[in-house]
Each structure stands twice: as structure tokens, then as C-alpha cells.
């Protein structure tokens, strides 16, 4: 029974995706002894299907702390990428040249202006952006098509290779002594006098603290330790092309060229439950928009398509909370595991270790949904 051994960890992290491994890596940097309990290959694994943006632009409209939180993570990202390279030799290909949101209509441009000007008013100088007309945009990106009438640009955005990121986090955390358990399925979590008993198929794991970073699994797990994380799947579909010569040196919200030359197309959102299959209609819509943006891609071959399930809360924002009822139990869940990886490693982990809670987190308690659900039930 490994879970009962004398060298049991300080923290159990449930989930070995981008969120769990970033937290575990950060905890190991803080000197904590950590075990990560990861699912088998049958898991939904948003971490293996995402788009790879480190994106700030437009996020947090309606909840300013999320804009601050994303901005903070993008600022910490160069430090994370450098540390991963130094510790593992894996270059996650972080590039932060700023990002473009291409627009095809005056309505889209107006929407960008409203969103970004509101955020800038709330965040001040920390939130630079530009709205570019067709001519200005073509000076920056000569390959955009004639149907693109303009774009918003912020220097805050970037992208990485998300698969290399996941691999680097796994490697780095284990080099720092984190134990990774693969193929484990967690059913019950039982609060005990000095911590938690986490019941898996393989063993009962015990530690004074437990972090729930199990993606869609957080919904059922958090209820057992006095937390509320009503996350649900939100499907995104992605297409990827053959590798082509470099033509696009900035990420855009729905088309980007990867460090190795392939072109990714994405940004669909569908609520279809736990269905992670692709559909021809959504894929063709994504492809058509991509070719309108960059007509030179018209004859480029697509080599793969896939779908993945975002871990989506009812308002789309993350949930970060320590249980009031069972202190030592934390939930860390979001749909932007790439963008927020640096904040998870460098700001969430020190908090879990015992440091002060980051200011922004007051806005991200799971209890906000209980209030909403309560209000809704009264409205009926």
C-alpha cells in the first residue's frame, strides 16, 4: 500500500494535465513533496487537444480580475519557458510577438473596440491595444485576404507548442522529485483528522493537502470536500495542415502557424456533452474562415482534425478555491491551461504551499455559482 508509506507526500494533485502538472511543478519549486495521480489514456485530456495560445486580448470582459490574472500569467510566461528549457532541455517555443483578432465586418470591429476599450479603462496602461484598418493591417501581415477589413492587435498575446509544454512540465516536475502515478482513477475523497484519504483503483493515497485539477472530473470530486466546481464540457474542433514555409509570424485568435510549420485552425465552441468527435459542418466552417483570412492557404492540405472538450464553468471563468469546510482541499480548474500555466506554477502553487492568496482570486470562488443557482430557483 504505497499510499500509507512513511514518505507520504505533502500534497496530492489529482490530475496530470497542464493544470495539475503546472501546479505540481510550482509546488516542487517551493520545496513541497508532491504526488500527481493521473488518469489512463482513456481520459478526455483537454491538454492534448488545445490550440496553444498564450492569450490575453479580450479576456475578462465582464470580470476584470480575469483580465488581470491572464495578463499576469503572460508576463510570467518567459520565466516559465526559460526555467523549463534550463531544467529539461525542452524548448516549448514560446513566442509573444502580440496577437491579432481579424475582423470581416464593421460589426466585428465595433465589438472589438467596445470590448478592448472597456478593458483598457479598467486596467489602464497595463492594457495596450490597437485597432487597425485594412491598410494598416496589411502593412503588418501582407498575406491577409481581401475580405479582412481590419483587426485588433495587442502586444500581450503569444503562443507555444502545447504538446511540448505538457511534456516539459511532466519532465520538470519529476526531475524535482514529484511522483507521477499513471492510470489511476479516483472515486472517493475522504477528509480525515490530518488531511485527506484519496481512494483510487490502485491504492488509498493520503496527504495533508489535496489539489483537484482533474478537469471535467472536478465536478464530482469537489463536492466531496466542500467545494463547488460545476464544470461542463465545451467542445472545440481543430484542423491542422501540412507543414508549410513560414508565412505568418503572429498568432491570431483562430489561425496560427506553429513553430514547426503546420497551420492550426480552430476556435469553435459547442455544448454537446461528453462527445469529443469532429463534425464536417463545423470543420468546414472553420476551414472556410481560415481561407478567407489567408487565401494563400487555399490549396494547402489538411493532415489531421480533432475535437477536445474544454473544461468550462457556467460563466467561462476559472475556479480557484480552498475549502472552508475542509481546509487543505483546493480546486484549480479553468479552460486556459496554456495561458495560465505560468500563473499556476508561480502564483497558485505558493498559495497552496501556505503563502498568501493572490489578490485576483477572490473573484474566482466556486460559491459564485451557488448564489446564481439560488437566484435562478427563486426566479422560477
Amino acid at each position, binding site marked *: 500500500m504505497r499510499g500509507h508509506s512513511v514518505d507520504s507526500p505533502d500534497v496530492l494533485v489529482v490530475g496530470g494535465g497542464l493544470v495539475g502538472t503546472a501546479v505540481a511543478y510550482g509546488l516542487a519549486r517551493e520545496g513541497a513533496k508532491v504526488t500527481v495521480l493521473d488518469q489512463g489514456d482513456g481520459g478526455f485530456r483537454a491538454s492534448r487537444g488545445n490550440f496553444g495560445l498564450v492569450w490575453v486580448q479580450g479576456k475578462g470582459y465582464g470580470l476584470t480580475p480575469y483580465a488581470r490574472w491572464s495578463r499576469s500569467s503572460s508576463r510570467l510566461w518567459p520565466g516559465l519557458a526559460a526555467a523549463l528549457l534550463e531544467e529539461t532541455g525542452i524548448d516549448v517555443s514560446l513566442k509573444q510577438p502580440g496577437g491579432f483578432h481579424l475582423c470581416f465586418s464593421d460589426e466585428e470591429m465595433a465589438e472589438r473596440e467596445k470590448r478592448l476599450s472597456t478593458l483598457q479603462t479598467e486596467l489602464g496602461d497595463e492594457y495596450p491595444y490597437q485597432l487597425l484598418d485594412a491598410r494598416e493591417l496589411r502593412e503588418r501581415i*501582407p*498575406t491577409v485576404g481581401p475580405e479582412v477589413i481590419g483587426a485588433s492587435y495587442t502586444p500581450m498575446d503569444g503562443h507555444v507548442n502545447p504538446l511540448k509544454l505538457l511534456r516539459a512540465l511532466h519532465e520538470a516536475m519529476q526531475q524535482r522529485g514529484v511522483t507521477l502515478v499513471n492510470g489511476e482513477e479516483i472515486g472517493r475523497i475522504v477528509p480525515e483528522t490530518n488531511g485527506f484519504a484519496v481512494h483510487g483503483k490502485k491504492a488509498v493515497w493520503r496527504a495533508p493537502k489535496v489539489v483537484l485539477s482533474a478537469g471535467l472530473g472536478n465536478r464530482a470530486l469537489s463536492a466531496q470536500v466542500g467545494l463547488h466546481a460545476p464544470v461542463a464540457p465545451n467542445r472545440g474542433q481543430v484542423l491542422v495542415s*501540412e*507543414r*508549410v*514555409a*513560414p*508565412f505568418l509570424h503572429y498568432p491570431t485568435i483562430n489561425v496560427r502557424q506553429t513553430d*514547426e*510549420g503546420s497551420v492550426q485552425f480552430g476556435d469553435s465552441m459547442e455544448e454537446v456533452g461528453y462527445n469529443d468527435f469532429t463534425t464536417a459542418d463545423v470543420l468546414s466552417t472553420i476551414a472556410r474562415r481560415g481561407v478567407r483570412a489567408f*487565401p*494563400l*492557404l*487555399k*490549396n*494547402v*492540405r489538411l*493532415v489531421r482534425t480533432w475535437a477536445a472538450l474544454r473544461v468550462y464553468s457556467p460563466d467561462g471563468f476559472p475556479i480557484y478555491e480552498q475549502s472552508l469546510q475542509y481546509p487543505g482541499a483546493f480546486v484549480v480548474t479553468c479552460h486556459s491551461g496554456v495561458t495560465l500555466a505560468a500563473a499556476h506554477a508561480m502564483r497558485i502553487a505558493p498559495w497552496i504551499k501556505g503563502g498568501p492568496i493572490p489578490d485576483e482570486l477572490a473573484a474566482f470562488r466556486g460559491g459564485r455559482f451557488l448564489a446564481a443557482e439560488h437566484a435562478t430557483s427563486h426566479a422560477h
Partner: protein
Amino acid sequence: MTSKPLFKVLTPATDAQATIHIWFNDQPLSVPGGRSVAAALLAAGVQRFRATPVSGAPRAPYCMMGACFECLVEIDGMPSRQSCLVTVKDGMRIHSQEGARDLPPSSDMNPLENAHGR
């Protein structure tokens, strides 16, 4: 460029499989017809089909069934074609695929590839 073939043709030649003449990297090659470009090139002793875009390493066909994308070559001006999925034809001009394919200039968007019914 070519060497002693690692593969040999097993079935007796039929008319469809009669020898045809193609070009590989501007050199004339005699190859058996009635098969994929990849199979024909392998039978003729071609071992280096392309260089990878990331490291420039040499590559040759691996799966021969359209899954691995290791057999990419340029065929009659069309870059990055899966040679295991294209039937070889007399007179074809084939080039090894050197790294990532180029994109057409923005001003030159002719539908060449679709016209070939891919």
C-alpha cells in the same frame, strides 16, 4: 541518388505494369507502371524521398497507406504529395520534397491542385 533496390517486384509483368519512364530530381528513371509513385521509386532504388521541415533529416516511405506522410514528394509541380496514394504515370516529373512546401504568392491563387481532382 538511386542505389540497388531494397525491394523487388513479385508479380509477373502485365501490360499495365510495363516499364514506363519518369523523371526524379531531373534524372530519367525506368520504373514498373501500374503502382503508386512510392512503390515505383522504391523499386527503382530511390531511398531518399524528402528532407523533414524541422531537422532536415532524410526520409523514405514507411506505411505505404496514406497515414504517415513520410513519402512526400513534388509531383508535376505540386508540392508535398503523398506518393503512396498517387498512381505513377509515364512522363511524370518528380522531385524530392525539401523541407516545408512553399506557399503560392498571394497574387497567384490558381486552382491547379483542385483541378487534378484530389
